[in-house]
């Protein structure tokens, strides 16, 4: 995944986490899409998946704390987007384990995650940045 400057929110902690998420998803997709047989890469895929599940929850919590701190008016709607994604990750993980690590489930998950993450960082999170900038400008007037 290609990190672009325009994705920066302007809050160092959040921006660092976003860059880390992009890097982790890149490793995850690269592992998943490598030419190796599924049996040869499943343990690495599972390890990355497990890390990402925890990291995403931590990141969402930090982002929500920042929204609360600045009084972001769309915090509830943003939190719902996070909650829905965490629920989706949970459902897929459960199915994945139940089926004995079926590759097709994780390929579908990764494809959706790729598009979802770029859109979330480039669109939804930018609204937080716009609000923070507007608020700061008003305070400086």
């Amino acid at each position: 995944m290609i990190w672009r400057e325009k994705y920066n929110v302007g809050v160092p902690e959040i921006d660092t986490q976003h860059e880390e998420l992009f890097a982790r998803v890149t490793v995850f997709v690269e592992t998943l899409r490598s030419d190796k047989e599924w049996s040869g890469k499943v343990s690495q895929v599972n390890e990355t998946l497990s890390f990402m599940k925890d990291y995403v929850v931590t990141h969402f919590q930090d982002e929500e704390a920042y929204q609360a701190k600045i009084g972001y008016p769309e915090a509830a709607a943003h939190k719902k987007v996070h909650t829905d994604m965490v629920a989706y990750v949970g459902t897929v993980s459960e199915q994945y384990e139940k089926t004995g690590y079926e590759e097709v489930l994780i390929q579908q998950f990764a494809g959706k995650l790729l598009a979802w993450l770029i859109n979330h960082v480039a669109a939804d999170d930018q609204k937080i940045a716009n609000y923070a900038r507007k608020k700061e400008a008003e305070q400086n007037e």
Partner: protein
Amino acid sequence: MSKDYLVPFADAARQTLKLLLDIDTLEAANQTESTEADNHDQVGVVIGLTGDLSGEIQYRFPSETSLEIVKLMSGMEFTEIDEFVTSALGEIANIISGNAVTDLSTHNVICDILPPRINEVSGGTGIDETTYIFSTKLDSEIGVVDIKLQLKMN
């Protein structure tokens, strides 16, 4: 029923493709209907619409365009259409449709969207004299994306 209902979907598609892929799109000069042969070499995503508008929105991405889309997002080469690619396109169609219904809601047209269905070019709503079909094609450096809005009178 007005063709204006298509505008939020076409606008949302242009904005989403710009945001996710950094590419510009224009309404294609050639707006002729896809042939049966074209349909075989593309990924179709259908999103159901409920509420003030009922029906579905269909997106068709030629195979080459589909592979370019995932390449632009991931920075990796893709050589075949598989579950990863179709799922990514399903999510893009979902994002476009979600943005379009948000736009419609500002005009007091309140709708919900249903989860994407992959490679079902024609949905289950059935076409009859109460069906309105509006379509457009968006052209870009990576190919043409076809958008078709199929609405039933409520």
